[in-house]
Every structure is written in C-alpha cells, then in structure tokens.
C-alpha cells in the first residue's frame, strides 16, 4: 500500500469498489501553474485560545478568551425569554420554513432600528433609514463595507487602535484601504482622547470612521458623554462618515438607552451614518447569526435606492438571511412582556460582569498586586485590557493555565467569583516576575 506524505494515511486505496486511482489528468484546485500554492491559513487568534484551553488538563484552568457570556458556574446561558420565544415559534401553526425577503422581515427591521435609534428618532420618522437583516455584526459590517466600496467616493476606513481584529479583515476584503486612529493609551489604560481627535482631524475628508457604540472591544474603554460630543464635532468638521459597530447594546451598562446614547447623538445631529447591530451577546443568540445593517441617508428617496443596493449586495452573498434567529428576536421585541423580561435578564448579565470587575479589583488589592488596577473598574463591557505584556500573558497561560489573548485582553464573562482570587494571584505573579 502506497504511503502518502510521512505519517499521513494513504489515500490511494479507495473503499468504493471499482474506483480508479487518481487519473493523471485530474486537475487539482491548486494545480494550475498560475496559482500560488494554497498555504495553511494562520489560526484565528481568538478562537485559537479556546482550542488551547480545551486541550489543557490543569483542573484550575480558566478560559478568559472568547467573548461569550458565562454564568457564575462557567456555563453558557440561553436566556429565559429566548427559550420562551423558541417555544412560541415552535408552537405557531403558521410557522413555515420559507425564504424570507433578502432584507429580512419589515417587522424585524423596524424593531431593530427602534431599539438602536430610539422611538422618536428623526431619521426613522423621516424615512431616511434603510435597514436590512444581516448575519450578526460581521455580516452587517461586510455588506455595509461592500456597499461603501461600490458607491462611496472615499475608499478609506479608519479603525481605532486597537480594535476587533476582524474589522480590518472585513474592510480589506471589501477592497477598502484601512488606517488606524489612536484610541487606547497604555499609560493610563484609558482613552487617548487627544490622540483620537488629532488623528480624526488629520484624516482625509469623507473617510469612513469605525466607532464602537459602547463597550469597546478589546479594551473596554469608552468615551465619556463629553468626549462623544467632541468626537461628533470633529466628525462634522471633517465630514467623516461614521460607521457604528453596536454589539453590546444593553450589555455594557445594563441599560439599553444609555448604551445607545452615542448612536442617537450622531443620528439626531442629522448626520448620514451606518450602523451594524448584533444580537449575539445581548440576546445570547451567538450561533443564530442575527443582526442588522442600517444606512441613514439624506432623504427618503435616496434611502429607498440605498435599500435596493444593500439587498442586491446581500443577494449575491447569501440570497436571504437565516430565519430562525430573526423569528426569536422579533418575538421578544414585539411582545411587551417578553421585552420587559429581556431587559431584566440583560441587566442581570451586565450586573454580573460589573460585579466581577469589582471582585477582581478587590482581590488584586488583597493580594497586593503591584500597580494601579482602577482601570478594571473604569472599563466597561465584557472585556478588559489588563495592560499585561506579552511575556506576562505567556506566564499567565503557561504557569497558571489562564487562557487569554496576547494583547492582555480578558473576558470578564469567563470569570466567576470563586476564581477571582486565583486570577489575582496569577496577575500578581506575572507582573512581579516577568
């Protein structure tokens, strides 16, 4: 039996009878002289952390990698309202599995924009907002980016430094150039406000600027209301096009309106803007891929045309969006009781995160970890930029089996009260000795 490359099982003997061996004329996907050899793609940094965690055998291991909510017991959570919505959808005799429209259902879109922009929002009332259901945050960003690449004259996207790694990936895949603007200040572990404003002032007129609506990923550092006002002013001055990424509305402070304040500030100021919304975290619908893309334009007639183009882009990508998650979201947002219950459960998740921050901070004080750890309390949302260096992070992982990304980011959602002391000790050890 012929051997394949060393260590790999041979594929030369097929199980199917009568099958001929590989014909000499077979043209492999990567055979063409004109194509580069298909190389193995680098492993995704964030998901790689979870894989390493799974492989680890230390009973004290801690997964502070991926940003999915965990309960105090470290378990994933499906919200009670989501289970109830599931039951209702299943029991509905009219429910079928037919295609939904390319832009999702009108109800879903209307409910999503009301959630984001608020009930009395001017752009909504004036019909200036074109919205389609998108494949969670990623899919919404992608369709928005493709739309801009096609129709927007300035092919430059400004991304905060640091940001979610996939932002750069998505916009470059759309054929747009990307550039960073200063955001995080390592010295303070807070916002580099002066740097941010200076970089936006320097940007070419009309550049697209990515803004995290709340709970900045990966740092957890958000502008204050005054600082948001300052950002608005420079955006207006430089005629930049804001593209909001809202993945944590309600998840950051526990209050939907408060977490939507920045979006609403810009929308109510009369700006044209884009918004990518995700229900992955705030409704725990991670795997169902539900989100929405909105484009606010100058008037209703333009908005209609924009809407048709968004749909055309989505059409060539996946025809129409997945139905199941959208049915759950619609059921929850359209029923006053379910909506009220959702807000309670959402606040419950946000409160647990806030409590973890407090408990970790307290533990760090207790063990006497050197340095100022108040940023743990000032930052908001699921993630915290600890400020740990690469060497320190390696120590965390190798010695203490605390799995986190190399940039020093930890997911507060992966923490529980009982583990705070252990984590504090690990941090103290890493800071002191690495």
């Amino acid at each position: 039996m012929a051997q394949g490359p060393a260590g790999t099982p041979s594929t030369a003997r097929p199980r199917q009878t009568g099958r001929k061996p590989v014909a000499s004329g077979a043209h492999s996907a990567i055979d063409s002289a004109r194509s580069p050899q298909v190389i193995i793609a680098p492993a995704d940094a964030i998901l790689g952390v979870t894989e390493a965690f799974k492989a680890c055998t230390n009973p004290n291991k801690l997964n502070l990698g991926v940003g999915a909510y965990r309960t105090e017991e470290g378990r994933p959570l499906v919200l009670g309202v989501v289970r109830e919505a599931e039951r209702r959808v299943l029991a509905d005799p009219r429910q079928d599995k037919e295609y939904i429209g390319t832009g999702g259902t009108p109800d879903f879109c209307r409910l999503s924009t009301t959630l984001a922009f608020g009930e009395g929002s001017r752009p909504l009332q004036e019909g200036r907002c074109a919205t389609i259901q998108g494949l969670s945050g990623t899919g919404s960003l992608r369709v928005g980016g493709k739309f801009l690449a096609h129709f927007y004259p300035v092919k430059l996207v400004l991304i905060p430094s640091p940001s979610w790694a996939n932002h750069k990936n998505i916009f470059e895949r759309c054929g747009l150039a990307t550039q960073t603007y200063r955001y995080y200040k390592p010295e303070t572990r807070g916002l580099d406000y002066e740097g941010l404003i200076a970089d936006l002032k320097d940007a070419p007129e009309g550049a697209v600027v990515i803004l995290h609506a709340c709970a900045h990923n990966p740092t957890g550092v958000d502008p204050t209301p005054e600082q948001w006002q300052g950002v608005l002013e420079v955006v207006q001055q430089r005629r930049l096009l804001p593209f909001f990424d809202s993945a944590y509305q309600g998840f950051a402070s526990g209050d939907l309106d408060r977490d939507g304040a920045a979006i609403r500030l810009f929308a109510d100021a009369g700006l044209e803007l884009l918004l990518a919304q995700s229900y992955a975290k705030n409704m725990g619908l991670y795997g169902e891929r539900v989100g929405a893309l909105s484009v606010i334009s100058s008037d209703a007639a333009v908005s209609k045309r924009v809407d048709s183009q968004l749909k055309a882009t989505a059409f060539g990508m996946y025809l129409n969006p997945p139905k199941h998650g959208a049915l759950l979201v619609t059921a929850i947002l359209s029923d006053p009781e379910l909506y009220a219950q959702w807000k309670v459960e959402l606040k419950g998740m946000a409160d647990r995160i806030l409590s973890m921050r407090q408990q970790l901070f307290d533990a760090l004080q207790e063990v006497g970890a050197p340095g100022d750890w108040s940023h743990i309390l000032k930052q908001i949302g699921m993630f915290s930029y600890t400020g740990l260096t690469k060497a320190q992070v390696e120590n965390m992982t190798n010695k203490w089996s605390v799995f986190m990304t190399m940039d020093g980011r930890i997911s507060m959602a992966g923490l529980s009260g009982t583990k705070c002391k252990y984590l504090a000790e690990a941090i103290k050890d890493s800071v002191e000795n690495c």
Partner: protein
Amino acid sequence: MALQRNTGVAALRALPAVLPAARTFASQAGWFGHVPEAPRDPILGVTEKYLADANPLKMNLGVGAYRDDSGQPVVLKSVREAERRVAGSHFMEYLPIGGHRQFCEDSAKLAYGEDAGVVHGKQVAMIQSLSGTGSCRLFAEFQGRWMKGSKIYIPSPTWSNHHNIWRDAQVEEVIYPYYNKETKGLDFERMCDTLSKAPAGSVVLLHACAHNPTGVDPTREQWQELSKLMLEKRLFPCMDMAYQGFATGDCERDAQAVRIFLNDGHRLALSQSFAKNMGLYGQRVGCFSIVCEGPAEAKAVESQMKALARPMYSNPPLHGALLVHQILSDPELKQQWYGEVKEMADRIISMRTLLRQNLEALGSPHRCAGRLAWVSPCCCVCTSATRSCCGRMDEPWAGPTGSWAGHKRPLRRRSPRPAAGISSGQGAAPHSRLRTCPTCAKPAHPGRCPVLAPCVFRGPCHPTRIPARSWQHITDQIGMFCFTGITPEQVDRLTGEYSIYLTRNGRISMAGVNSGNVGRLAEAMHKVTSS
C-alpha cells in the same frame, strides 16, 4: 463627571454644540444621492407582482419553492420531528468558523457516497455554508484568490444569481452553450466543443442534477463523456447540487454526476443546499466542499475556506445545521426523509405528465399540413399552417419517418379553402412563394424551420405531418423547473390575461402546479401559443 443613569442623550444634548445642528452633507443629496436603484432580480419581481394581483385564480409559477397539491408550503414531517428534538435542548454558542462538523460529514457522505474513500480518507475540505448561494459565493472567492487568472464557465442559461455571485467575487465569466432552444434539450455537442477550447485550469460550473432553469440534464453517458473531456483538458469542475433527491426522488441517483466525476479521479468543488430537498429554505443551510489530493492539502484548503468565511459572516447559523444533522444521523428519520423527498419528486413528475396530457388533449399534438407548410425562421410553430387541412387532428405524431397511420391519402379538408398560394394536399406546391411569419414578421420559407427541418421536407410536394408545438419536453425535463419554450411576449399574455406568473424566459416552477390548476394552466398555455 458622574455619568447620569438616565438617557445619555439628554446629558449630551445639554452641552452646547460647536456647530449649529445643520446637516453636514457633501451636497444637497448627501453622500448617497447618486446611488441608483439596483436592478430587480427577475424571480423576485414575479412574486411581488403575483402578491399584488387580486385575481383569485392567479398562479405563481415563479420562485422555486415546493408546494403541495393544495398550493401550500410544506414543512416535512421529518423536519418537524427534528425541530421538536432540537428545541430547548441546545445552547446557542458560536459554531466554529467551519460550522457544525458532524453536519459537514453527513452532507459529504450524502453527496459523495456513504463509503466514499475521499471522505473516509479525509481528503475533502468542507465547511458549512449559507445554503447553495453561500457555497457558490465562497467558491467564487476561493477561485478568485487561489486560482488566479482562471475564468468561470457558466452554462447558458443558468440561475440568474450565478452571474451576480462570480461577478461580485470579481471572477471573469465565459458562457458556454447548454440549452438547445430548438430541441428543448441539451446542446451537448456545442457544449463540449466550447469546453474543449477552454484553457487548462478553467473552472466549469455544472448543475449536478435538475438544471435550473431548464430542467435539462445530461444523460449518464453524456456525464461520462464530459468527465473524460474535462480530465483531458484539465478543466476544474464546480458542481452546484441544489436538488439532490428532488429530481428523480432518489438521492443516490441524483448524485450520479458527482460520483462519476469522483470515480474518474476529478478534484472537484461542490455546493450543496438543503433548501429544497429538506424544505429548509429560510434556514440557509448548505455545505461547501472541495475534494483535494490528500489530507494535508485538504487541511490547507479548508483553512483558506474559513479565512474567506470569517470576514463574511464569522461563523454559520446553527439552527438549520442541527436539523439536518438530526435527520441524517438518525436512521429512522433519514428513512422518513427519503420517503418525503420521493413524494415531492413524484408529485412534480405527475404534474409534468398531467400538464403535457392536458396540453395535448387541447390542441392537436401536431398539425397536419396536408400541404406545404410555411414555416417561420423565428420559432418552431408554423403559424401559417392551418389546422385542419385533412381533418385528422388527433393522430399521434409517429416521428420523422412515420407514415400517416391509417391514412393513405389526405382527406378532403373540412375547413375553408386556404387562401390562394397555399397548395392543397396534392399537386405542386408553390414553395417558392414567400409569406410573412405572423410571429416575427420575417419571410417564411417552406422547409426552413430549424426545428422542423429534420422532420419536414422530403420533397417539395410531399404532404407531410408537421408537429405543431410539441410538449414532450415537459416530461423529458426533470426537477422543479420546466423550460416551456414560451416566448417573452407569450409570457406577458399569460400574466396579463390569465394572472399566471412566471419568469419571462418561459420557465415555470412545476411545484406551483397542482391538480386544481393544471387544467387552467394548460388552457392558457395552449391559447397563447396557438394564436
């Protein structure tokens, strides 16, 4: 400054604005004023018009979604059972970028064979995708990145979105002949001829079964020939299989093209959709796979497939994959599903038969010329031939060399004498005299009809049976769609006069046909094609 607990915007509004709250648009029309309305997808436009029509007898033969005999959408029982089992039982965590692994393996076995060596040998790079569209799009992007310079050969006609997909992925397309308008079948010769001239490394898009929109599939022998040709010319097959099980009712049989190519040693790409065969249209569940040289290459290719998926949607939706996995991994449910797919396919096949029978009962399956027929170059209907030259209207057409069974000489015609210039059944025919085709206004010549030429003339005065519109293709074609051969103008009449909605290329979705409306459909089709 303490953050207020109430609405943040109120706090922000209290601060003085630097600029007046005027609009900051680049121009009066803002940044997007120049954006034009996107062209409508032809299929969706049909459904929209259908929905707006108040006629209670309206029929939607546009979009390809299965309907039962009462015209209602169907959720399969096996799907309902899978749903019940799945609801409340799972977390909704992110799937990996490549999707649900067992689902992918189930799909690959369904397509390539339960015992397929390539699957067991880990030679197949596969990821869960957003139904057929998502698979095709991922492949198009893969082709653009890793098969640079190669073009996509797309059959004519094809599903309209194929063009959008490869264009949006910025891969150049070349059209290859597929459908033969005259025979309403496959133009195999011209197809092979064009493909044989394609440069090595070109990618050829093939519909694995139940070609959309024509319903015309290659025979087994033709698939074998094509496979060998493509090996010889080093062409890369990309199979789009959206109807496995739905065409003949037999999943194994419908995958024959894939198996033939696989057995011949092709490395191929495959787009699988569960939208139709499991009725999971809205769930967007499919599988995109590429058969590679070996496990190492499969790993590399799969990692690159994921690299394309990540900036598109990060990871695929969960629900549909759970349902499919339930069904394919449970022997009982799987058997139940096989039965349901067969039922759907059988209903379609029976509708084809009924429609053809109805059409043939309505009009003569052929028109007896009894004399020379004036044939138009534009279409296969000899509209200038009158109906009843010899009065024998209901004899089946016995083929090009068939005789007039039981009819030795033309009978006296019952219809009024034809206008001057058309010969009677006997005697010399003024076949040199030109007439004008009422359909295309081009000069009509005897014996020039490209469709009927093989059947028509054996001599200038030989009375010949000329088939009028033949509806055989309705039962020859397979799958959800039927390419009727109806012209765009006739389609407009069907829609305008009868509220029957279909795409202007004459494609009807057989799924929209049922025992309640087939009669009316046949009548309408007969009327618009015979006047």
